[in-house]
């Protein structure tokens, strides 16, 4: 499973979680999702879900690293 991450304007990070039903449709990929959701001009990365911390205690302090 994958996730898309991209930085917020205030230094944080947003994480896009794909819907399995949407991803199962022909032509729908993580790249397509990134093009649709990530604001134009923002950098983004497609990462494995295992790279996302499961402890969300300090979720609001997470940062995007290129």
């Amino acid at each position, binding site marked *: *499973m994958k996730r898309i991450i991209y930085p917020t304007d205030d230094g*944080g990070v*947003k994480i896009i979680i*794909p*819907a*399995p039903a949407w991803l199962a449709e022909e032509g729908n990929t993580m790249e397509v999702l990134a093009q649709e*959701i990530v604001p134009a001009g923002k950098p983004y990365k497609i990462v494995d*879900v295992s790279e996302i911390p499961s402890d969300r205690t300090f*979720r*609001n302090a997470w940062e995007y690293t290129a």
Partner: protein
Amino acid sequence: MAGTIIVDRIESDASYASSINVAAQVTFSNTVNFGVSSVAPVAGVYSPTTNNLAFTTASTERMRIDSAGNVGIGTTSPTTFKSAKLAIRNSASSGESVLAIINNSSNVYEGAGILLGSTAASTNYGATWLYHTYNTNSPTNSTSYAFNISQRATDGTYVSNIWNVDYQNSVSSWYRPNTSALQMQLDASNNLLFNSGYGSAAVAYGCRAWVNFNGQGTPAIRASGNVSSITDNGVGNYTVNFATAMPDTNYAVVVGSGNNVAANDVGNLTHISSTSSVPYLHYETSVFRDVEQLFLAVFR
């Protein structure tokens, strides 16, 4: 007499026997005309009335082509039935079909079992009709029906429609058998009406998008419809992204949450400002929190 007889004309004089028996194959190199006869052959062809041709088996007429070219099977008068060009009638008391059309091809997708159509310029006259009618006259229902399935009672009387497509009013309707109760309809405004159990058919307002997701640990979507993804913006702060955008921002959102831990001051917030996504915030005791069960549905 063995051999071949070549003649230009065989004609029976009324004063003599009127049958000719030939114990061999007869080949006609030109047309064959049948004179009018009141006696049906055992198994053959004859003309029962002027310009009519009938086919018989067991001394009984089975099929007729009338003077106008109309064909009747089981009836000597095909035009009786709505001026049909082809009428097939089964007068058996019960248990027999009138017409069997069987597509027994290895791939049923390659051809229809029955294909109805019309190339008439005017749809008023070119409609495809399928209905039950007790009498041979017009059906009881409206002549505006392009396609109609109706039913009759055991005494043969017309009872009600089951399904009809009314092309003049652009309405397609489904009724409950044995009643005239409308159960479902596609109306002229393209609205779908159905009886959901409260007594009558009404416009059904569909859920345009929905999602059930887990906000704890590594947030994940359990199930969804018309949702491409959720953006995790922070603790208790999400954005639901639609796969297909709403037509405008006048939609309604229903949000909910589930948690094993009872808490006061629990709420879910949203604010509609986009056709492509909608925010979803969950809080408990005035603080944004992640919980295991988060739900959102959109209606328009």
